């Protein structure tokens, strides 16, 4: 039984299907990457699975349970955490408050959970009282990811976690994602930094115009000349 | 209820609709096109009405004016008098956006109203200015034609403005100010132009109103009828859509005056007070319109591209 699976999804905005017959699957403990050109529907796919875009037909299952079109706010308590592509922190709240809100659906003290996040992102501990809105691009991504990790998810969904980060931070971020994955958390991410992402991933999907194009292990996709030509910039 | 009577009422009804339609078009320029949240319509409405009252009435004791000038001069005066007022308000509120601007403008409108209440030397204070005549000795029918002509011309001008590159810049400002500035547009200037032009239309409405009812006093410029009604018309009709603004004026004023008949059908024992029930109905109808058609009766359409038919 897959951790998350999407079968034959049709979904879009205002009656127009963006996704057509989309299939996706994430196994427990796996890092899965989605790549594809701009406007391919990658973000839409993430949102649809998370209940933010209505699915017209098809099934989304989480650990075998059908969660198609369930409201987004319920996904979190099931153990799925999602970091959107844009506007992914609460700008006027401090780092600590952002993290606390991440654990909104959980009971019990936040202290230990927050310590664990600080272990992964020590920089957040230094800046814990800073307002998230004025942090630099890289720090914000950490806050966003930290916030998602606060729910102790079993599945983490990341939409372009490295966009706008410096090369050094990109390295570090992939490093961290691998670290998170090693804690037993499944990761599904969209990336434009395709080479690095595929290098870090167990499996990858290539989407174009809302449809599946390729699916393979990360290294295999990297080695595929067609993929490289059309989607990785030669 | 005879035909002649009905048509006389229809003329009267349409005249008020026309006056409100002009104001709704002015508001559409500010809100629908530029996103300026002006809830101070009553202030500009008052400036227009008082200006023509002062210019066109016979001389009177105890106040400035009574210049006995013709109707046309009065209306032009209304619009011109509004320019410095609107410009000043635009200047004062230049940095304000959304609800902040809204609340500032409603405050300014109330200050303008209090000014007319208290400064008798100019406005004859609470007593108001009577004897504002319709032009050329026209009756209601003739005056409706004048109003209709003004509505048509206003609509044409506002519609051209909306389709013009000028209107495009306004819509860009509505969407994203920094990006508009980065595209080389002087946002402050465009905002000011839209605000002043829209306000002048409200003043024009005020001028036409003054000649229509023949009397102005501060009571006419309270927020309910001076401002909110116009907003309700624009929003219900479809903000951003000029035809919608005019349709909204018609429909909302129809609701406003027809609910009396509906309320009359319900036994008083059930509702306590017929008139209160009427206002209750108005509120409910409005909510139904807003909930069922939040984009308005005629939603905004993008202006045609050059060479495109529509």
């Amino acid at each position, binding site marked *: 039984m897959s951790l998350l699976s999407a079968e034959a999804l049709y979904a879009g905005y205002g009656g127009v299907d963006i996704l057509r017959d989309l299939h996706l699957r994430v196994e427990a403990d796996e890092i899965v990457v989605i790549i594809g050109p701009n406007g391919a529907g990658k973000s839409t796919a993430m949102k649809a699975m998370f209940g933010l875009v209505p699915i017209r037909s098809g099934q989304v299952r989480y650990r075998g349970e059908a969660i198609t079109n369930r409201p987004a706010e319920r996904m979190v308590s099931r153990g799925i955490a999602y970091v959107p592509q844009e506007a992914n922190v609460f700008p006027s709240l401090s780092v600590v408050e952002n993290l606390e809100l991440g654990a909104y659906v959980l009971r019990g003290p936040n202290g230990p959970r927050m310590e664990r996040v600080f272990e992964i992102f020590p920089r957040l501990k230094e800046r814990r009282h800073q307002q998230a809105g004025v942090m630099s691009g890289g720090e914000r991504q950490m806050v966003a990811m930290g916030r998602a990790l606060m729910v102790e998810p079993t599945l983490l969904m990341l939409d372009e976690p490295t966009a706008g980060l410096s090369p050094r931070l990109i390295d570090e971020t992939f490093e961290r994602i691998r670290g998170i994955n090693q804690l037993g958390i499944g990761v599904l991410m969209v990336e434009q930094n395709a080479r690095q992402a595929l290098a870090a991933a167990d499996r990858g999907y290539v989407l174009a115009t809302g449809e599946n194009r390729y699916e393979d292990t990360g290294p295999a996709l990297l080695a595929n000349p067609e993929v490289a030509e059309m989607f990785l910039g030669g | 209820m005879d035909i002649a009577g*009905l048509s006389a009422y229809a003329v009267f009804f349409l005249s008020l609709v026309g006056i409100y339609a002009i104001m709704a078009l002015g508001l559409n320029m500010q809100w629908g096109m530029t996103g300026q949240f002006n809830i101070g319509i009553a202030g500009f409405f008052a400036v227009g009405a008082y200006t023509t009252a002062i210019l066109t009435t016979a001389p009177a004791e105890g106040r400035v004016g009574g210049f006995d000038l013709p109707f046309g001069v009065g209306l032009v005066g209304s619009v011109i008098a509004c320019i410095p007022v609107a410009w000043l308000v635009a200047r004062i509120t230049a940095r304000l956006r959304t609800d902040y601007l809204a609340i500032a403008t409603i405050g300014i409108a109330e200050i303008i109203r209090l000014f007319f209440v208290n400064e008798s030397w100019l406005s004859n204070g609470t007593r108001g200015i009577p004897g504002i005549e319709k032009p050329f000795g026209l009756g209601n029918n003739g005056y409706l034609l004048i109003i209709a002509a003004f509505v048509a011309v206003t609509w044409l001008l506002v519609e051209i403005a909306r389709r013009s590159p000028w209107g495009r810049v306004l819509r860009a400002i509505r969407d994203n100010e920094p990006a508009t500035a980065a595209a080389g547009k002087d946002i402050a200037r465009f905002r000011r132009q839209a605000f002043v032009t829209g306000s002048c239309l409200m003043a024009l409405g005020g001028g036409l109103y003054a000649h229509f009812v023949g009397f102005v006093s501060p009571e006419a410029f309270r927020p309910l009828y001076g401002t909110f009604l116009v907003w309700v018309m624009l929003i219900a009709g479809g903000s951003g859509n000029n035809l919608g603004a005019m349709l909204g004026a018609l429909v909302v004023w129809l609701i406003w005056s027809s609910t*009396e008949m509906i309320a009359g059908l319900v036994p008083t024992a059930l509702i306590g007070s017929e008139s209160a029930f009427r206002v209750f109905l108005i509120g409910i109808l409005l909510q139904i319109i807003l909930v069922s058609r939040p984009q308005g009766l005629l939603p905004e359409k993008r202006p045609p591209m050059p060479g495109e038919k529509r």
Partner: protein
Amino acid sequence: ELKVGALLPLTGDLQAYGESSRNGINLAAEEINAAGGVLGEPMTIEIADTQTEPQSGVDAAQRLVSVQGVSAIVGALSSGVTIPVASSVSAVEGVPQISGASTSPVMTDLDDNDFLFRTTPSDAFQGTALAEVAADEGMDSVAIMYINNDYGEGLADAFTDSFEAAGGEVVGTSAYEPGLASYRGELSQVSDGESPLLLIGYPENGQTILRQALEGGHFRNFLFTDGMKSPQIVENLGAQYLNGSAGTVPQARDDTDAAQHFTEAYEASFGELPPVPYIDTAYDAVYTIALAAVAADSTDPVAIRDHLRAVNDPDGEPVGPGDFAEAAELLGNGQAVNYEGASGSVNYDDNGDVAGTFAHWEIEDGEYVTVRVFEPSM
């Protein structure tokens, strides 16, 4: 069939007065119909709400005239609505309009093609009357607070002129804006600690002002105008604080037959007659319209207007509100009548105004008691 429009504020600021005026109007119509109606048919009343706003007031008036086809209008209450209705509807359509409550001096000279009348005297008279009452009460200095509209300002000005001419002193004057939660600042501004307060306004905010004046210890004695003559004030604030306060109201001599008839008839129909103004004036307005229609032998608006003064022929037979059948018969026989109304003699002058008499009233044991009825000596 005679149709009369009642143009009243049934919602909005003056809603309380609108409802009581409506009773007066309905009462007059019922009596007239009981006495055989007008020109052989029962007359009808069409009611329309002004919402106390000019925009909807003129619309309602036009609807009365055009859609309901009324031959005359009774109303409106506030001058801010009455005047626009007169100049955009009544004068234009040629329908007589009689207000029972608008007191603005502006109406006297209004260019209304002689279609606008009123059954209540202009402020100018009441101001003088008020000064006389102040003198009667032995007040040589007063502070004034008045509602900031044409009614308040008109009265305050007229009072100040007469009062000061008679040697009185006004220790402080402040206009107030309606609807505020506190008038304590204004009160402490006008108060000198001793002088009584002349409060010109309506109960809606007047009650708040009175209460804050008493609670803050600013004033103990009060002088009122017609607008504040309302039993709910005594009821809400407590009689003991208001006993001894005095005021004026336009009122006919209540010893007249007409006034007694009105009071009895009202009480028979609606229960106790509330001591609020503008009921009898509205009542009289309907009567004069009905009589004028009879005199004109027509329900044509212009004909009614032309005969409004004729039903007050000084040489005619005096008739009162209870005598409609007789009056109609006299008129039918071509004889002149002189209507003496519940609110006074209702003799419309060339401007459509009436000269009124005023009552000097006091509050005693929580009741409004008329001390005397008099004609102000201008």
